[in-house]
């Protein structure tokens, strides 16, 4: 299915709702075109193009809900999927946490769609990959990378009169360059809504430089070090805070934001006062959808303000139970920073370690949000404001909450991509003191 216009989506959804005999009915419609190219050993390995669309019908009788989906859009199929959702609803056990669907809402006009990304051709993709490969080859290094682009739309309508529509595009690129003797490795990643902003050549140049410079890594003792986390490294730690902002987990006492006696840290200072985290669907650098999947408007929300926890996200059920404002979980997260570049942060560092990328992040203790993982693809020792030499990779055991209390300095925020979740964020490079490395790794 091509990307439907707002009018086309409205007409189709209206037709589906007309078949409903349930107490309440809600319909979500979406379609995406995805293209990707994967390469390794300086050669393309696979590439694909996948077009998918789906129509999800949720029918409710009282507190009994049935959900059915279909990817055919003729009248008979549309009626069939509505009947199937109703059958499933009749069979379903009553869910005491069921919430009646929302009535009409007001949404801001989204800015997530860029026509140039939707119009990308197979040749453009191959050219972008070729530019990356040429950089690696000219340095006699070996590149492995992945380029993917998406264009899609989503729309929803329900029997209470709610209608929402959004289109969006995105492109994510990542590349790992290794020296031909496998002794050095470097990495770079980029994410944009607009593919014309993607410069695979410059990103691959950074990865190549890191690979060449990291080839003679020295082992230094694990322990507590001042680190400068590049935005891609910070992203995989910071997103564990973002994912943990759920009110129910905190209220139930099983989150790092819980306190004894059923209390939470809402309203309390959690981290350094220079830390401010917010989400804003209309941020031009990181635009996201102006509504959530259940129809709630997405608006600008400050989650942590000058170190103080200001807001939690809620399911509609939990918000009603707790008599709280039902703020949905955000799609993108933005952290305020300063004006300094990564180079400026390095210049101002007496002794420290520059971290390009962190890898294989896992929770060790949810109570303190203690995480473990390793540095990878470019770890360098800094002394007297200069990168002195590459160092062997480390395993860390650190909590991002403790880390943000040991904040030294923030640089200028930039858009980056989490290697763990594939989500895009706007984050500053950050200088942290006493970051805990617990062992050495021989991995390159």
């Amino acid at each position, binding site marked *: 299915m091509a990307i439907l216009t707002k009018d086309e989506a409205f007409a189709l959804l209206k037709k589906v709702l007309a078949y409903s005999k349930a107490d309440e009915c809600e319909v979500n419609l979406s379609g995406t075109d995805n293209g*990707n190219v994967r*390469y*390794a*050993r*300086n*050669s*393309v*390995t*696979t*590439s*694909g*193009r*996948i077009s998918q669309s*789906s129509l999800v019908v949720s029918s409710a009788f009282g507190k009994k809900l049935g*959900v059915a*989906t*279909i*990817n055919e859009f003729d009248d008979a199929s549309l009626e069939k999927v509505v009947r199937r959702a109703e059958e*499933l609803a009749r*069979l*379903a*056990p009553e*869910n005491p946490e069921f919430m009646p669907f929302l009535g009409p809402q007001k949404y801001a006009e989204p800015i997530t769609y860029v026509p140039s990304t939707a119009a990308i051709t*197979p*040749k453009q993709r*191959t050219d972008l*990959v*070729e530019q990356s*490969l040429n950089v690696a080859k000219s340095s006699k290094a070996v590149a*492995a990378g*992945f380029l*993917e682009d998406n264009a899609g739309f989503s729309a929803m309508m329900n029997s209470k009169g709610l209608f929402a529509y959004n289109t969006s595009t995105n492109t994510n690129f990542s590349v790992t360059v290794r020296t031909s003797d496998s002794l050095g490795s470097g990495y770079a990643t980029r994410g944009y809504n607009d593919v014309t902003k993607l410069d695979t050549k410059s990103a691959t140049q950074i990865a190549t430089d890191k690979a060449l410079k990291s080839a003679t890594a020295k082992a230094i003792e694990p322990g507590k070090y001042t680190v400068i986390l590049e935005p891609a490294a910070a992203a995989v730690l910071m997103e564990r805070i973002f994912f943990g902002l759920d009110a*129910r*987990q905190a209220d139930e*006492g*099983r*989150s790092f934001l819980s*306190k*004894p006696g059923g209390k939470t840290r809402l309203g309390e200072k959690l981290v350094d006062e220079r830390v401010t985290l917010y989400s804003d669907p209309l941020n031009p650098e990181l635009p996201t959808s102006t509504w959530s999947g259940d129809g709630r408007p997405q608006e600008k929300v400050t989650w942590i303000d000058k170190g103080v926890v200001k807001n939690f996200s809620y*399911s509609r059920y939990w918000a009603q139970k707790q008599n709280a404002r039902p703020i949905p979980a955000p799609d993108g997260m933005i952290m305020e920073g300063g004006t300094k570049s990564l180079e400026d942060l390095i210049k101002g560092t007496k002794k420290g370690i520059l971290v390009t990328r962190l*890898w*294989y992040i896992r*929770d*060790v*203790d*949810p109570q*303190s*949000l*203690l995480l*473990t*993982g390793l540095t*990878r693809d470019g770890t360098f020792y800094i002394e007297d404001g200069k990168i002195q030499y590459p160092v062997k*990779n480390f395993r860390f*055991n650190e909590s991002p*909450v403790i880390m943000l209390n040991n904040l030294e300095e923030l640089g200028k925020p930039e858009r980056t991509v989490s290697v763990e*979740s594939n989500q895009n964020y706007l984050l500053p490079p950050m200088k942290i003191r006493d970051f805990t490395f*617990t062992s050495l*790794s*021989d*991995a390159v």
Partner: protein
Amino acid sequence: MKRRDFIYLTGMGAAATMLPGIPVTGRPITPEEALMPVDPALKKQMADVALNAARSKGATYTDVRIGRYLNQFVITREDKVQNIVNTESYGMGIRVISNGSWGFAATDKMDKESIAKTAELAVAIAKENSRLQTEPVQLAPQKGYGEVSWKAPIEKNAFEIPIKEKVDLLLGVNDAAMKGGANYITSLLFMVNEQKYFASTDGSYIDQDIHRIWPTFFITKIDAATGKFETRNALSAPVGMGYEYLYARPQDKIQGITTLYKGRYDMLEDAKAGAAQIGEKLKAKSIEPGKYDLILDPSHLWLTIHESVGHPSELDRVLGYEANFAGTSFLTLDKWQSKQFKFGSNIVNIAADKTQPGSLGAVGYDDEGVKCGQWDIIKDGILVNYQTIRDQAHILGLTQSQGCCYADNWSSVQFQRMPNISLQPGKEKKSIDDLIKGVEKGLYIIGDGSFSIDQQRYNFQFGGQLYYEIKNGKIAGMVKDVAYQSNTQEFWNSCVGIADASDYRLGGSFFDGKGQPAQSSAVSHGSSTARFNGVNVINTSRNIG
């Protein structure tokens, strides 16, 4: 599905962090629809359309996978059913070689015209890819098997069991845990049926029916006074079985400090034990960091095998095909060629096996039409082999693939995935108690927990579910805040004892992620309880104020 969406789906929050992202692709269907397979004669007709269309456009090799992928997930918490999800995904993936390059395209429109167009698109993509190709694909020869079929040897198709029985089981489990003192429990049943058909220009038409099941739970208990909380996850294993996995018999249980399960699983009993143990865990002593001899139960050791043996012996990682995401491997070809790379101690024998009954990796043929078998990876401590597919076999001097090719959906391109990789039992008669008896200062670890390993698979850190301190050959009580860190080669060379075959059990991963775009696969790892000497143990407790 993204990890965040899974958390939303289950409402598990912190507990979900123990699981990787779960790809739920496909459309929800009624349970009854899952029981009607597609006629193989029809699949052969559709496959021939694709094979002929690709050949006519210049493909020198083509394979076609027609897949019907069924999932049923039942998710509950405390006294509520949170979600029942039935999905089906049906379509065709076509892979070709043209101009010496791979091309792939997939469609869910199963009319002749759409199939032919998709085959032509795959050839066009192969030709475009060949522009940046440095070495043409070399495919190991493979004989055609004609029209054959294979079915997983299950006793009870889980999709035939009424939803009510499944819901009653999970709500019963939750009730038992809550009565036992738990504050929260999420319990889940995952069921998968892959009905897949493979055809290639080698002359194979292979119809297969594969079943998998995973019952699991996550219990949380909070100490109201201190606000401290602990979790205890199920000791079940995901398996390549039907619903019979949940009908445990006395011979399926190993009695010890907690009941361990062999072949079949008693979910209710484990939930009761879990609720009691989590209370004990809250009061347990925090571990003193240092060197300990570890006794590792198969419900824990499977994950260490998976990460430190399974992944580094994947030949595509060794060669650099996964360098940008999952990483490469320390098991480089020169180590294999030397025939003397001491991966582990002399008693360490690790084998690959795609045929083991009840395992997640068991199939008749892989996703490029190669009949499955068994082979050694580590023999008497020495690296002797890897895991390969058809376009890599020549690198090892093999004339045939080892049958390790898999795609998680018709719409995904198949690539090298891990077969079951298992530690072979000790040859001398030895029980768990015999292993514990010999330890002066040690830890007995049951169940899998936090896991992390570097991109070449040297440095790892693992946690578990239950930790018991061993003093002078006896269990001295429960401890907590434990993780061990080691280096793969040091760790396997510190293996000094493995219990005999009577203790051999399977663990496994239902959702093992690899590749870009990420694909998931299911794989089992068997072992008997084993002892590792002098491993570094850290204390994971922190205070954030």
